[in-house]
């Protein structure tokens, strides 16, 4: 037989197959040292994906970095963290982190108490050190290639290095760091608390509102440093006493930690699962030499697949780290079928080669098809828009193909070489009987149930499907990389504690920019000025105003005749003319003012002043001035000067030139120097404060209002008057001048994390208390709705960035992609089944168990309330691949046995012997074999472990009961060529 060629060859030249297998393993194994890991969920999206490009653009535009968040909580001290000791520690830690550098040995070193200190960062546990070594995870990797620190020191957010603007003595304004120096007294510590609480940018972000916690935000050059930075911080704070608890979190840390622990899982869970499978195989087959074969098939497949992945230059990603776990059951399953058969039929032949040929000829078709369907299931993942999933799917498909090939060649070759005939002759039948005794009898009974109560079974099935469908409708599509850790994992604990104290550790950025940058033409600008001029000067200076308007109109006419008027030029011309006008109107007053201004206030009296101006300007003006000064003749020195100048300013202040500058500033003002636009942001933020999942939002506006308040604060004025300045300055120029102060703070450019340098775009930093995608989606929707109902003064372009938002995008793609992949592979498998069985009905039947299984599993997920996340999504392909296998074997053998025994009724008993046995063994091995995964500290692994077991159990039930029941019900149509006894009876 053609199909046996491969196996016949293997039986004849087993050593060649062995050599080939070893060669393949060595070849692929040799690729392992090249391994590189990638645990960045961001890579779930392609490099050039719009949202990723935009995210990076926003990061670049606003100089944003990924943060390691370090929370320090003190519940014990009456002042919370604001006590001398804790603040001292925080200050010291900040300085140590700033001072991080490479010492002469290339090791990380910080300056502690003025002395170099190189912390021992490697774990004390030899096992962890070993793992770190194997996976090339060097804890001392804290520097970029040029040796610069992974921590971006100038951008650290810590009380010691964030700006604060506050009132100092004598009405002066202090611009300094929130904690210039560590406090030495309780009073000083409490001043820092008050200052922090009074700054809207820090309250809820840097300091918790309850005063019990402070969060440091440590920016890093790349996310991949976050695990090591977290490790460094843990090390540097190891000697802190219990009162000050340190919690480290943030999405980069979570992701990076996940990556590191994922490797640990790869190194522990997968081998443990392998071991469990091995023990189960041993239990079923009793012969060590026999079961080594499937184990070897699994190992060779996994090693080769991983080797291929690494060799092709792909990074080992969260997804691909699970290749071993997915591949192991599949590859074992194939060889277990062979072994099971071999085991059961050896006694008939009493010859290894013959038995093998018999078994393979028997199983060739179902095994080919089970492999092809599994390959189809996984290969369909290549249609998803998520690169790591594509890589995963195709590699698993490769692994499955290889496992099939090995099962056809390597397993027979192995049996020929390593399984001693004597052992088979002596022990097998006995073991066989014993085994069959227990499991076999049970299965036989089950077969009768399936046959006799097929209607009941089908009814139950329909009920199950309906109930499951309801469950599916309630499925919540959601993911949150932090929830990939188990409840008590330190990351989860830190996440809970810090989100309890602060506005939220999950970051999203909402960027706003005008749809069109407003640029006025010369004519528009003049028109704008004309209106403003009438308003300002129309009544007070009617004559001059008319002259000014004439100038404006004149300029307008002049520039309108020009095609492309240079706007600057038009302005300069106007200013010159306006200056001339000013000189005419207020020139005399200004001369007076200047003269008085330059007088030496020392010993200045009214008389002296009047003498000095006696020759300035004209008499009319001087007389008016003298008249206005009547009440102030007793004043002296600077007071006199100021009073005189105040009066003069009343007349001189109406300057057309100044007006032009103001008008120019107003007409030219970028979007976010315009008070009305800022007011819109203010309203938006007020709305954000009401959205439940948003802990806090921060924008340049918060800084602006705070600065305006502090600048205008006057201790001699009423609180009401001062508080009124906690607002947006009234004109674009006033806004600009306050912003200018913020540009020149100690920490340069920190303002520009929230607003672009041209003030045309803003970035609102939104802190969420939850990283759940559903929460993020809700926030986006809420904001979209609000903005639709509350349109901005000019049309805005709204953009979202930040890791929390990025997760939403890739997840949406994941869900849609997985759904498509599932549907397309379902169709492909259906077609394959019809071809395989050369029957439409059999093809449909083969799809029943997997349909029931998938429906049940996802229904269960819905009912239990588990989120549909990345691992769950991927499981659908595994389900498809595995549960169709059982159906193929079952149907193939049913057909065969019905033919052999003449009727389904007779065949079914046999079906529930050998074939059901193989299926059951498989189901038990895989479901129990993966229980070690349940003990992993990472949720995706637990999920996979749990669902693998469930998938096996459900597919097993679905195949043995539902399929059997369906065949019973449909036997008339299924076996119409064979006149089965049953149908004869029914006809009779």
């Amino acid at each position, binding site marked *: 037989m053609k199909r046996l060629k491969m196996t016949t060859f293997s039986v004849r030249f087993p050593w060649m197959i062995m050599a080939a297998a070893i060669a393949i393993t060595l070849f692929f194994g040799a690729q392992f040292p090249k391994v590189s890991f990638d645990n960045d969920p961001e890579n779930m999206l392609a490099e050039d994906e719009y949202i990723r490009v935009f995210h990076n653009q926003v990061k670049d535009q606003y100089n944003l970095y990924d943060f390691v968040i370090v929370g320090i909580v003190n519940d014990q001290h009456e002042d919370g963290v604001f006590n001398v000791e804790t603040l001292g520690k925080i200050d010291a830690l900040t300085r140590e982190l700033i001072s991080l550098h490479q010492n002469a040995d290339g090791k990380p070193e910080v300056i502690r108490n003025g002395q170099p200190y190189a912390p021992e960062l490697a774990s004390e546990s030899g096992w962890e050190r070993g793992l770190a070594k194997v996976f090339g995870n060097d804890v001392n990797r804290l520097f970029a290639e040029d040796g610069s620190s992974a921590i971006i020191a100038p951008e650290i957010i810590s009380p010691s290095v964030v700006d604060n603007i506050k009132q100092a003595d004598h009405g002066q*304004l202090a611009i300094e760091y929130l904690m210039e120096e560590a406090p030495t007294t309780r009073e000083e510590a409490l001043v820092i608390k008050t200052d922090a609480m009074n700054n809207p940018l820090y309250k809820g972000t840097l300091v918790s509102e309850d005063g019990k916690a402070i969060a440091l935000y440590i920016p890093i050059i790349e996310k991949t440093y976050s695990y090591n930075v977290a490790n460094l911080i843990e090390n540097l704070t190891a000697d802190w006493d219990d009162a000050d608890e340190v919690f480290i979190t943030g999405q980069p840390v979570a992701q990076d930690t996940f990556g590191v622990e994922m490797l640990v899982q790869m190194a522990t869970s997968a081998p443990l699962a392998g071991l469990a499978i091995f023990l189960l195989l041993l239990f079923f087959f009793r012969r060590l030499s026999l079961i080594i074969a499937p184990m070897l098939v699994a190992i060779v497949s996994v090693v080769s697949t991983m080797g291929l992945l690494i060799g092709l230059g792909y990074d080992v990603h969260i997804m691909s780290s699970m290749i071993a776990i997915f591949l192991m059951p599949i590859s074992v399953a194939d060889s277990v079928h062979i072994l099971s058969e071999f085991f059961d039929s050896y006694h008939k032949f009493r010859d290894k080669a013959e038995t093998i040929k018999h078994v393979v000829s028997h199983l060739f078709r179902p095994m080919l098809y089970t492999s092809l369907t599994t390959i189809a299931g996984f290969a369909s993942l290549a249609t998803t828009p998520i690169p790591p999933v594509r890589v995963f799917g195709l590699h698993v498909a490769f692994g499955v193909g290889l496992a099939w090939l090995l099962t056809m060649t390597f397993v027979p070759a192995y049996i020929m070489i390593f399984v001693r005939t004597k052992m088979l002759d002596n022990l097998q039948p006995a073991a066989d009987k014993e085994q069959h005794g227990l499991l076999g009898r049970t299965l036989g009974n089950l077969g009768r149930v399936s046959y006799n109560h097929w209607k009941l079974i089908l009814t139950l099935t329909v009920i199950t499907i309906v109930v499951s469908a309801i469950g599916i409708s309630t499925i919540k599509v959601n993911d949150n990389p932090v929830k990939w850790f188990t409840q008590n994992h330190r990351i989860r604990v830190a996440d809970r504690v810090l989100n309890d104290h602060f506005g939220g550790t999950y970051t999203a950025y909402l960027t706003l920019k005008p749809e069109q940058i407003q640029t006025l033409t010369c004519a528009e600008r003049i028109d704008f000025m004309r209106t403003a001029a009438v308003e300002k000067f129309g009544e007070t200076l009617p004559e001059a105003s008319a002259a000014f308007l004439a100038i404006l109109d004149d300029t307008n006419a002049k520039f309108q005749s020009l095609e492309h008027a240079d706007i600057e030029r038009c302005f300069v011309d106007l200013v010159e003319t306006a200056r001339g006008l000013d000189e005419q109107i207020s020139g005399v007053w200004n001369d007076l003012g200047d003269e008085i201004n330059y007088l030496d206030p020392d010993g200045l009296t009214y008389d002296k002043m009047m003498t000095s101006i006696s020759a300035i300007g004209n008499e009319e003006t001087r007389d008016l001035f003298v008249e206005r000064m009547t009440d102030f003749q007793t004043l002296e020195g600077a007071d006199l000067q100021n009073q005189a100048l105040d009066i003069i300013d009343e007349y001189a202040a109406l300057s057309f030139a*100044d007006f032009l500058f103001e008008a120019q500033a107003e007409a030219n003002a970028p979007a976010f120097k315009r008070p009305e636009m800022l007011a819109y942001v203010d309203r938006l933020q007020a709305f954000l404060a009401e959205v439940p999942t948003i802990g806090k939002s921060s924008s340049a506006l918060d800084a602006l209002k705070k600065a305006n308040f502090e600048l*205008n604060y006057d201790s001699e004025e009423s609180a009401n008057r001062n508080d009124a300045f906690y607002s947006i300055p009234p004109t674009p120029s006033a806004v600009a*001048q306050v912003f*200018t102060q913020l540009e020149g703070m100690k920490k340069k*450019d920190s303002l520009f994390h929230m607003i672009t340098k041209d003030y045309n775009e803003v970035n609102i930093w939104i802190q969420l208390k939850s990283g759940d995608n559903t929460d993020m989606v809700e926030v986006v929707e809420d904001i979209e709705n609000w903005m639709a109902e509350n349109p901005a003064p000019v049309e805005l372009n709204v953009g979202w960035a930040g890791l929390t938002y990025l997760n939403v995008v890739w997840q949406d793609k994941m869900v849609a992609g997985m759904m498509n992949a599932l549907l397309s592979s379902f169709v492909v498998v259906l077609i394959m089944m019809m071809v395989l069985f050369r029957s439409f009905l059999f093809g449909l039947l083969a799809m029943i168990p997997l349909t029931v299984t998938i429906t049940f599993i996802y229904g269960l997920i819905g009912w239990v309330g588990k989120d549909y996340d990345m691992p769950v999504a991927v499981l659908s392909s595994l389900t498809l691949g595995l549960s169709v296998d059982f159906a193929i074997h079952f149907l193939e053998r049913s057909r065969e046995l019905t033919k052999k025994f003449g009727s389904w009724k007779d065949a079914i008993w046999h079906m529930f012997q050998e074939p059901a046995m193989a299926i059951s063994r498989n189901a038990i091995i895989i479901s129990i074999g993966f229980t070690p995964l349940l003990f992993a500290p990472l949720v995706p692994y637990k999920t996979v472990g749990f669902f693998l077991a469930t998938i096996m159990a459900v597919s097993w039930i679905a195949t043995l009961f539902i399929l059997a029941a369906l065949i019973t019900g449909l036997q008339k149509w299924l076996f119409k060529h064979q006149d089965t006894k049953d149908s004869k009876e029914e006809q009779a």
Partner: protein
Amino acid sequence: MKTLLTALTAVALTTGAYAEMTADQIAEKANQVAYYAGKDGRAEVEMKIIDKSGSDRTREFTLLRMNTDGGNQKFYVYFKKPADIYKQVFMVWKEVGEGKDDSRWMWLPALNLSKQIAPGDKRTSFVGSDFVYEDVSGRNLKEDTRELIETTDTQYILKNTPVDPGSVEFSYYTVKIDKDTFLPRYAEYYDKNGKLYRTVEATKVDTVQGFPTVTESVVTDLNTGGSTVNTFSNIKYDIGLKENIFTERFLRRPPREVTR
């Protein structure tokens, strides 16, 4: 004849002295040349702040400086552009005496507000540029110790180490000073980890009224990739400024020396 001889002797003595000048003497002389030329002075400055992407923001201001007693100085900075900070003023009284702090004021015309700024860090950004206040007004010589690390044919190279390392962000900086003019030409700042992160360079130099004068200077921040270029024009020395224009009264009503 006698006068000539005296002059010659003086030149000889001074030249001799130059040959053996200590680092402190060089720095002292350079400081005088760079920041104290004439009794007073005025310049128009165009400040171009360029970020890493190459986009820039330009500010224009008029700068008045006056030397007062004991090495103290007064500065008046009057902004003209962009239009939205037109007439904004920044004023400094620089005090070099032991334990003395500079006094600083600002005037924000659109807010009709003058405010004194409490003494603080002088190494903060000057109006958002890469220059720090100290670059504009000069760093107090007493705050560093220095050594002459190299003498080339044309330049002295000084290494300056802060007396109080905690007060500044650098661990040391080197300055190259032209031998003939004593004008500092190029400074390099090294951070606490010994990495070069900032340079200040006098890119154009001219002689104005006999004083060697920087007409263009560039600060580059290697960490941010940003730089700031200051271009000086209409430079005049000894214009006879009155000290009383450096008072709060002149914030609101700027002196003619800047408006004209």
